[in-house]
C-alpha cells in the first residue's frame, strides 16, 4: 500500500517536473476573436509584442500558438476594419485561454453615408452612383453638366427654358455652387422659348453632388435642389490641346511645374454656328448667327502637403438674334437680339490645420451684362411701332447688369477618434442688379442685397452603421430686411453589407425673384419643407435606389389679386434608379424612373394647378459600350416623359380676375440620342499626341417634340413651343499634345 503511494508520489513528482520543464519552454495561447454581436473575426493578427510569436485567426475567429516568451507580456490584436486590442498576459507555461471582443473601427469607406436626396459623381474610393467621366460620356449630354443630370431621377425634360427642374420646382429653384460658392448665371442668358447650355465645361470638375432635396446646411437659397461642383486639382502632366468641331474651335495649354506643386493654364474657345446653320435648317430665322467667345485662365498651387489654392476665371462674350413670326398678327415678326458679357472668378483655399481642424476659404466674383433689343418687324424685316396693345409692349430694350461678390468660410473640427465632424462657418454675398428697361418710357431699377448667412452642421457617427447629420442655418437679406433660421436633419442606417436606408428633412428658404420684388418690395422669403426617405444598395457592379419624397411649399409669390406671399403648393413622388455594369458583358447601363404629383398656386394662377414644367412620369435609359476592336465607345440614351400641362391663363375683364381660358396636355416627350467616341491613337506606344473623335446625334428618330404652347393676346391662336431644330448633330476632333493618354483610356475600359 505504502509502496503504491510512493509510486504515485513519484509519478506526480515526475509529472510536475515535466510540466515545469514545459513551462520553462513554451506557453500555449488559444482562443477566439468575436465581434460584440458574437460573429467571428477572421484574418486578425495576434502578436506578443517585441517577439516573433503570434498567429492569424482562422475563418471561425479561432487561433492557437505557442510562445517562448515568459512573464508579463503584451498581446496585440489587430484586424483590418477593427479597433486594435491589447491585453497584458502572465505567461508561465500553463495554457492561456482567451476570448477577445473586437469592435469595428469607424472608417470612411465602410461608414454609412447619408444619401437621401443626393446623387454623387466623383472618383473617391467610396463607391458612388456616377463617376465624373460619366457626365462626359452620356449620349444626350453633349458635354453639358446639367444635361447629363437630366438622365437621373427627379429631373424634368425641359427644352424651352434653361435650368434644372427638380421635383416640381421651377428652374430658378435649383442653384449651382462651384467650390462652395454660389454661381449666378451658370447658364447662358435666357432666350425666348429656347433652352441654353451651361457655361462651364464638364472637364473642369472632378466631383459633382446633385441634390434633389434635403441638402446640407452649408447651402441655401434654393427651394428644390442644389448642384454642388468641385473643380479639379493639379493636372497629371503639362499638355496642350486643340479642338475642331462642327460648331467652333478651341485651344489651351496647361503647365505643371517640375515639382508637381503648382500649375497654370489658359484656354480659349470660339463657337460660331454659321456653318452648322447652313447645313441644318433651324426653325427661327437667326438674323444674327450665334457666336461665342470664351477665354479662361487658372492656377492651382499646393500650399502644403494638405493644402491647395485654386483660381479659376473666365471671360465670355456672345451674341445672337432670333426672328420668329409674331403670334398676334399674320404679317408681323418678332425680332429678339442679345449681346452678353460675362466674367466669373473663383478663388478657393483648402488647408488642414493641425490634426483636428480643416479650413475652407472661398471667394468669387461674377459680372453679367445682357443687352437685349426686341423689335416688332414687318415682312421686310423693317422695325415697326404700333402704339396699341398687344403690339406696344413688343418693342423694347433692356440693359441688365448683375454682379455678385461673395466670401465663404467653413471650419471643420473632427470630434473624437471617429468620423464625427462639426462644421461651421459663414458667408457674405453682395448682389447688385441694375436693369434699364425702355419701351415707350424708360425705367431704371437698381437692386442691392447684402446677404449674410451662418451655418453649423454636426455629422455624428454613432457606429459604422448609424450616422446622423444635424444642421442649422441662419440667413439675413438686407433687401428683404428679413432673417430666417432653419433646421436640416438627415440620418442613415446601414442594412446589411451593401444596403442602407436614409431619411432627410429640411426647411429651405429662397428670395423672391427680382421682378417680383418690383411689384411689391415687402415680399418675404418663399419657403419649402422637404421630407425624403431613401433606400440604396450599392456595390461596384450595380446600384439600386428607391426614394419617396414629400415637399410642401409655403409663402410662394402670388402676383394677383395682390402681389404677396399667399401662394402655396406641394410635390410628392417616388423615384427609382438602377445601374448595372456587370450583367451584360462590357455594357454599362442605367435606368431611372420618376413619378411626380405636384400642384401649386402661385403667380397669376387662378387656383392650384400642376405647373407646365412638371410631367407626371419621366424615365431615362443610358447605355455605354466600348468596342475594343474598333477603339470606339458607343453611348446611347433614351429619355421619355409624359405630356406636360399647358394653360392659357387670361385676365377676364368682366370677372376682374385671371381665368383658365384653355388648357391641355402636350404630346409625350421622346428623345433617343447616340454618341460615338473614336480613339485611333490608342495603343501606339510612345505617341506624343492623343486624338479623340466625337460624333453625336440628338433625337436620332426625329421625333416631334412639343414643350408647351404660346397663346395670342386674344386667346384665339395657340402655337407650339418646339426646339429650334428637331435634331442636333455634332462632330469634333480633339487633340492633346505632350501627353500619352492611351494608358488612361485602356485602363478605363479594362
Amino acid at each position: 500500500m505504502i509502496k503504491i503511494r510512493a509510486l504515485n508520489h513519484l509519478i506526480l513528482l515526475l509529472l510536475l517536473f515535466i510540466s515545469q520543464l514545459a513551462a520553462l519552454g513554451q506557453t500555449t495561447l488559444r482562443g477566439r476573436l468575436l465581434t460584440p454581436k458574437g460573429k467571428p473575426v477572421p484574418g486578425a493578427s495576434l502578436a506578443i509584442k517585441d517577439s516573433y510569436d503570434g498567429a492569424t485567426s482562422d475563418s471561425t475567429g479561432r487561433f492557437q500558438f505557442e510562445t517562448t516568451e515568459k512573464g508579463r507580456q503584451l498581446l496585440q490584436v489587430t484586424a483590418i476594419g477593427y479597433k486594435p486590442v491589447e491585453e497584458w498576459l502572465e505567461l508561465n507555461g500553463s495554457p492561456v485561454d482567451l476570448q477577445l471582443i473586437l469592435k469595428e473601427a469607424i472608417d470612411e469607406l465602410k461608414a454609412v453615408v447619408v444619401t437621401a436626396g443626393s446623387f454623387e459623381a466623383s472618383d473617391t474610393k467610396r463607391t458612388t452612383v456616377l463617376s465624373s467621366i460619366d457626365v462626359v460620356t452620356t449620349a444626350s449630354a453633349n458635354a453639358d453638366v446639367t444635361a447629363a443630370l437630366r438622365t437621373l431621377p427627379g429631373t424634368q425634360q425641359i427644352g424651352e427654358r434653361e435650368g434644372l427642374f427638380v421635383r416640381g420646382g421651377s428652374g430658378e429653384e435649383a442653384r449651382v455652387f462651384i467650390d462652395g460658392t454660389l454661381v449666378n448665371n451658370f447658364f447662358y442668358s435666357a432666350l425666348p422659348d429656347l433652352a441654353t447650355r451651361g457655361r462651364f465645361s464638364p472637364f473642369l470638375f472632378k466631383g459633382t453632388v446633385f441634390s434633389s432635396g434635403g441638402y446640407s446646411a452649408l447651402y441655401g437659397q434654393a427651394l428644390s435642389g442644389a448642384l454642388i461642383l468641385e473643380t479639379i486639382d493639379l493636372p497629371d502632366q503639362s499638355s496642350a490641346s486643340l479642338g475642331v468641331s462642327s460648331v467652333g474651335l478651341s485651344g489651351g495649354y496647361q503647365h505643371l511645374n517640375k515639382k508637381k506643386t503648382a500649375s497654370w493654364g489658359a484656354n480659349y474657345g470660339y463657337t460660331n454656328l454659321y456653318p452648322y446653320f447652313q447645313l441644318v435648317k433651324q426653325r427661327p430665322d437667326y438674323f444674327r448667327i450665334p457666336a461665342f467667345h470664351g477665354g479662361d485662365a487658372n492656377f492651382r498651387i499646393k500650399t502644403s502637403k494638405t493644402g491647395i489654392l485654386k483660381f479659376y476665371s473666365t471671360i465670355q462674350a456672345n451674341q445672337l438674334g432670333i426672328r420668329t413670326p409674331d403670334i398676334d398678327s399674320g404679317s408681323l415678326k418678332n425680332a429678339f437680339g442679345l449681346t452678353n458679357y460675362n466674367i466669373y472668378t473663383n478663388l478657393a483655399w483648402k488647408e488642414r490645420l493641425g490634426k483636428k481642424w480643416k479650413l475652407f476659404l472661398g471667394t468669387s466674383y461674377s459680372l453679367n451684362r445682357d443687352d437685349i433689343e426686341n423689335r416688332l418687324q414687318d415682312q421686310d424685316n423693317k422695325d415697326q411701332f404700333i402704339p396699341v396693345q398687344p403690339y406696344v409692349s413688343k418693342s423694347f430694350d433692356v440693359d441688365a447688369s448683375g454682379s455678385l461678390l461673395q466670401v465663404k468660410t467653413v471650419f471643420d473640427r473632427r470630434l473624437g477618434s471617429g468620423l464625427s465632424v462639426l462644421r461651421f462657418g459663414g458667408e457674405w454675398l453682395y448682389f447688385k442688379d441694375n436693369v434699364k428697361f425702355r419701351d415707350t418710357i424708360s425705367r431704371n431699377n437698381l437692386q442691392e442685397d447684402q446677404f449674410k448667412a451662418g451655418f453649423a452642421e454636426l455629422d455624428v457617427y454613432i457606429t459604422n452603421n448609424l450616422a446622423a447629420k444635424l444642421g442649422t442655418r441662419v440667413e439675413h437679406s438686407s433687401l428683404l430686411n428679413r432673417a430666417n433660421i432653419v433646421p436640416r436633419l438627415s440620418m442613415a442606417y446601414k442594412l446589411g453589407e451593401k444596403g442602407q436606408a436614409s431619411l432627410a428633412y429640411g426647411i429651405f428658404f429662397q428670395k423672391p425673384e427680382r421682378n417680383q420684388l418690383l411689384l411689391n418690395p415687402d415680399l418675404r422669403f418663399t419657403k419649402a419643407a422637404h421630407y425624403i426617405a431613401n433606400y440604396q444598395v450599392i456595390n461596384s457592379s450595380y446600384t439600386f435606389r428607391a426614394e419617396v419624397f414629400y415637399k410642401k411649399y409655403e409663402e410662394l409669390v402670388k402676383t394677383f389679386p395682390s402681389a404677396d406671399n399667399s401662394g402655396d403648393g406641394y410635390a410628392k413622388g417616388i423615384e427609382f434608379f438602377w445601374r448595372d455594369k456587370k450583367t451584360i458583358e462590357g455594357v454599362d447601363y442605367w435606368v431611372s424612373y420618376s413619378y411626380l404629383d405636384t400642384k401649386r398656386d402661385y403667380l397669376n394662377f387662378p387656383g392650384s394647378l400642376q405647373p407646365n414644367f412638371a410631367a407626371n412620369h419621366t424615365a431615362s435609359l443610358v447605355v455605354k459600350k466600348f468596342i475594343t476592336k474598333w477603339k470606339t465607345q458607343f453611348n446611347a440614351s433614351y429619355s421619355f416623359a409624359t405630356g406636360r400641362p399647358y394653360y392659357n391663363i387670361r385676365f377676364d375683364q368682366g370677372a376682374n380676375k385671371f381665368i383658365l381660358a384653355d388648357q391641355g396636355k402636350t404630346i409625350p416627350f421622346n428623345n433617343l440620342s447616340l454618341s460615338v467616341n473614336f480613339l485611333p491613337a490608342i495603343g501606339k506606344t510612345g505617341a506624343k499626341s492623343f486624338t479623340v473623335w466625337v460624333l453625336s446625334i440628338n433625337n436620332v428618330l426625329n421625333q416631334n417634340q412639343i414643350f408647351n404652347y404660346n397663346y395670342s393676346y386674344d386667346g384665339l391662336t395657340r402655337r407650339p413651343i418646339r426646339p429650334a431644330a428637331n435634331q442636333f448633330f455634332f462632330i469634333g476632333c480633339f487633340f492633346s499634345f505632350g501627353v500619352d493618354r492611351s494608358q488612361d483610356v485602356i485602363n478605363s475600359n479594362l
Partner: protein
Amino acid sequence: MKQTAFLLLLMMGSFSLFAQSEKYQKAMQQRIAEMETAVQNGNMPALANTFERIADAEKNQWLPYYYAAYCQVMTALLEQDKSKVDPIADKAEVLLKKAEALAGGANSEINVIYSMIATAHLTVDPAARWMQYGQSSSAFLEKAKAQDPTNPRPLYLEGQSKFYTPEQFGGGKAAAAQVLEKAIAMFDQFKPASELHPTWGKAAAQYFLAQCK
C-alpha cells in the same frame, strides 16, 4: 573586476545579438520559402501578419515590412470581393511606408510594390479610377526600372499587364511574351543583395509566358 564584468556584459550582449540575427535569418528564410506556395494555399494573409510581427520585433529591418506589404498587396489582388480590396491595399501601403523609412527611401523593389498597390486600387472600379491609379501604377514601374535596370520584377509586371491588355491597346499575348521573355532572362541573371532580398516573380513570369504560347 569592473573591467571583467564589463567585458562579460559585452560578450553576453554580442552573443544575444548574434543569436538574435541568427533567429532573424532563420525565421525570414523559412517564411520566404513559404511564400512560394502561399498563393495556392491561401496563406498570404497569415504570412503578411507573420512578416509584420518579425518587422515590429526587429524594429530596424526594412525587408520584413517589405515582405509584409508584398503579402498584403497579393491578398488584395487575389480578393474576389472588390469592396474589401481598398482597406487591404491601404494596409499594404502603411507597411510599405515603414519599409521605405527604414530602407532610407523608396528603392526599386519598394516602387514595384507601390505599383502593385495602385493596381489593386485600380481593379476595384477601373472605369472610374484609371485617371488616378492607372497612371501611378505604370509610373512606379518606370521608376523601379530606372532605379535598378537589372531588377526583373518591374519588367515581369509590365509583361503581366500587357497580357491582360487587349491587342488593340498595344497589349496582347505576342507583346506580353516579348516582355516576359526579357524578364525571365533577367531573372536568370539577377543576383539578390543577400539571401533575404527579394527574388520572387520568375515562376509567375514563366506561367504567363506559357499562357502566351
